[in-house]
C-alpha cells in the first residue's frame, strides 16, 4: 500500500506548473478571446517540446509512454492556469482511444500528436457538443453503435458560444460518410473508457481551478481594506475560504485514486471516476461560489481574473457526465444486491 506519488512525478508536476504559470497568464488567455479560433499554435508547439502532447503516447510512437496516473497531476496544473488548449483531452481521451483502436490509425496519428503536428478530438453522444472540433485534424465520433473517424473535410461544424470564452464547442455533422473504426462491443468499450478518462480529466482540472480561485481570493482579501482592516481578517470571510479548503482537501485523494484505477484497469475504475468527478466538481463549484462572494462587486466584473477560472469550473461540472450521470453510476454500484461496502472494502472489496 503506497498512496503517494514518486519523487519524479512530483518534480515533473512542479516543472510543468512553473512553465504553465509563466506562459499561460490571464493576459494570454484574454488575448486568445480576441482571436477567431481561440487557440495558440505557438503554445501547442511549446507543450509538444516539453513532451506533454505525447506524454501518454507509447514510446514506440515517439511519446513518453506514460499513463493516466502520471498525467493526473499535470491535469491539475492545466486547471490551475485554465489552459485553453486541448491538452488534457489529447493525453487523457484521444491518445488512449487511438491506442486502443490500434492498427494503421494509431501508427499514423500517434507520432504526429507526440510531435505536436496534429490534434485528434473525440466526440461522444453523452456530450452535447464536441470541444475543439475546429482545430481537429481527425475526429473520432460516436455514431450509433460505431466510432467513425472523420477528417475536417467530412464534417460541418456549428459553433456554440460558451459562458467560458475559452471553450470552443461545436455541433458536428457528418457531411459525407466516414469510415467506422470500431463497432459493437468494441465501440462500446471505447466509449466507456473515453467517458471515464474525460471525466477524470475534468475532475483533475477542477482541483486545480479550485486551488487557483482560493489563491486569488486569499491574496485579494489580504489586500482589500474595509472598516480599517483587511477583509480577510473578518471571520465570515475566513470561514467561506476554510469551507472551500475542507472540500478541496477531501477531493484530492478520490481523484488520485481514480487515476490509479483507470491506469491499472481496475474493475471499479468507472465507479472511482464518478466519485472523483462528483467531489472535485463540487469543490470547484463551492470555490466559485465563495470566491466571488469574498470579492464583492469586483468578483462580478469581466476585468477581474476570477471569472476565467469560475466559468471553466461551471462548465466542467456538467460535461463528460453531469452530476446525474455520475450519481446514477454510483447508485448502481452501492445499491446493488450484494454490494461490498463499509470498512475494509475501499481497496479490496469491489
Amino acid at each position: 500500500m503506497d498512496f503517494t506519488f514518486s519523487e519524479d512525478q512530483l518534480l515533473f508536476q512542479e516543472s510543468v506548473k512553473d512553465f504553465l504559470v509563466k506562459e499561460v497568464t490571464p493576459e494570454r488567455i484574454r488575448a486568445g478571446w480576441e482571436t477567431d479560433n481561440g487557440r495558440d499554435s505557438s503554445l501547442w508547439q511549446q507543450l509538444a517540446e516539453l513532451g506533454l502532447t505525447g506524454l501518454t503516447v507509447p514510446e514506440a510512437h515517439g511519446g513518453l509512454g506514460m499513463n493516466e496516473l502520471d498525467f493526473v497531476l499535470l491535469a491539475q496544473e492545466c486547471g490551475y492556469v485554465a489552459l485553453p488548449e486541448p491538452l488534457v483531452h489529447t493525453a487523457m481521451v484521444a491518445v488512449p482511444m487511438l491506442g486502443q483502436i490500434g492498427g494503421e490509425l494509431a501508427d499514423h496519428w500517434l507520432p504526429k500528436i507526440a510531435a505536436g503536428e496534429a490534434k485528434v478530438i473525440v466526440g461522444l453522444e453523452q456530450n452535447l457538443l464536441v470541444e475543439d472540433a475546429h482545430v481537429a485534424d481527425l475526429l473520432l465520433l460516436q455514431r450509433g453503435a460505431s466510432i467513425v473517424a472523420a477528417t475536417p473535410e467530412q464534417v460541418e461544424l456549428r459553433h456554440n458560444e460558451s459562458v467560458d470564452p475559452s471553450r470552443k464547442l461545436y455541433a458536428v455533422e457528418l457531411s459525407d460518410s466516414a469510415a467506422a473504426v470500431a463497432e459493437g462491443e468494441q465501440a462500446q468499450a471505447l466509449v466507456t473508457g473515453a467517458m471515464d478518462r474525460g471525466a477524470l480529466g475534468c475532475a483533475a482540472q477542477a482541483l486545480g481551478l479550485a486551488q487557483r480561485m482560493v489563491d486569488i481570493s486569499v491574496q485579494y482579501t489580504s489586500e482589500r481594506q474595509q472598516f480599517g482592516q483587511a477583509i480577510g481578517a473578518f471571520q465570515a470571510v475566513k470561514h467561506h475560504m476554510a469551507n472551500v479548503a475542507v472540500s478541496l482537501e477531501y477531493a484530492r485523494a478520490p481523484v488520485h485514486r481514480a487515476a490509479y484505477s483507470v491506469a491499472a484497469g481496475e474493475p471499479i475504475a468507472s465507479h472511482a471516476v464518478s466519485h472523483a468527478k462528483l467531489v472535485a466538481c463540487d469543490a470547484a463549484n463551492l470555490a466559485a461560489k465563495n470566491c466571488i462572494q469574498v470579492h464583492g462587486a469586483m468578483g462580478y466584473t469581466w476585468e477581474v481574473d476570477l471569472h476565467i477560472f469560475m466559468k471553466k469550473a461551471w462548465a466542467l461540472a456538467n460535461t463528460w457526465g453531469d452530476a446525474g450521470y455520475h450519481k446514477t453510476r454510483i447508485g448502481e454500484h452501492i445499491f446493488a444486491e450484494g454490494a461490498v461496502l463499509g470498512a475494509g472494502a475501499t481497496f479490496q472489496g469491489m
Partner: protein
Amino acid sequence: MDLTYTDKQNAFREEVRSWLAANVPAEALQTFDTAEGFAAHREWEAKLNEGRWGMVTWPEELGGRACDLIEWLIFEEEYYKARAPLRVNQNGIFLLGPTLMEYGTEEQKARILPKMANGEEVWAQGWSEPNAGSDMAAIRSTARLEGDKYIINGQKTWSTRAVWADWCFGMFRTDPDSQRHRGLTFILVPLNTPGITVRPIPQLDGLPGFAEIFFDNVEVGVENRLGDEGAGWSVAMATAGFERGLMLRSPARFQETARRLVELYRENQATADSDPAVRDAVMRAYLDAESYCLTTYQTACRLNKGGKIGAESSTNKIFWSELDQNMHATAMSILGARAELLPHAPDAQGVGNWLDGWLFAQSGPIYAGTNEVQRNIIAERMLGMPRK
C-alpha cells in the same frame, strides 16, 4: 503508487479478524456511561491487552505491536467491522499515552503505561473550565508547588468519563502572575485524592457521560508533573496534535455507519423515496466516508515516508464531524415517525441505535476544538489569511 495490500498486511488483517471473531462479546456491552457498562468495558480493555491488541501502535516493549499507520487503519477496519466495543480508555491510550512516551520520565512511563494498557487505570481529560472552553489559555485552576507537592485548587468541567475514571490529566496555572498560555503546567491527578469532588453531568441522552471536577487543596506529588513546570501548553498542544490528527476518528467508524445507512435505506426504500433528497443524501454519505478513508490513507502513506502533518489536519475534524451529523440526520429522515422513539419503546421496530448516534453526532462539531475554531485555524495557518 500501489493501492494493493502487501502479503504482510493481508496476513495482519487475517490475524486481527480471527482474534476478534473469537473474542468480541456476542452481545453488545452496555454503554460505558453507566457503572456496569464502564466495568464491562474495562474488562474488555484487559482482554484486548492480553491478546496484545489494545494499543497496536505502541512499541512492543510496552505491550504494543509497533504498527505503522496503515496497519493501524487495517486494525481499525476489522475492529469496527467486528462491532467490537468502543474504547473506554481512549483518552489514555491515544492521547496521554503518546504524549507520555514523548515527554514522560522513565519512571512515569514504567509506572503509568502498563496500567493504562490493561484498563486498570482509565483516564479522563481535564482541560476545559467554566471560563476556558474554546479559549483554553484562559485556564484559572491553580497548582502551587510546596516542597515536593503541588496544591491544586479550581474547577475543570466537561471531563468525559470522569465519573468512573481513575485519573485525569490536565493543565493548571503554576505561575499566579502569568497570562494566557505561559505559566501553565501539565499535571496527572489520581481522582481518588482527598479534596476532589466529581459531579456527574447528564448529557443529551440523560446519562452522566461527562463531569465537573472540583479541586479543593488537592495534594499531588511532583512526580506527577509531565514535562517542565510552565511548559504545559506545549505538552498539551502535542496531545491536541495527536487528537486532531489521525487517531481520534478512524475512517472505519464512518464507513461502517455509511454501510449501515445504505442498508437502512434499502430496507425502507418504499417509504424513504417519498423524499427524493434521501437517496441523494445516502449516496453523499457513502461518498464522503470513502473520501475520508482515501484521504486518510493518503496522509498515512505520506507520514510513513517521513512526511509531516500540518495545519491541514484541522480539515479532518470538520469533515468527519459534519459527515457524522449528515449521516445520522439522513437515518432520522428514513426512520420518519419512528425516529424519535427510544429503542426499547414497544413500537420502535427497526430503529437500531440510530437515535443514540444522532444525539452523539451533535457533539462532534463541539468537542476536540469546535469547528468554528478549526475554520479559524485553517484560514490563518493553512491558507495564510490575516489575523487582524
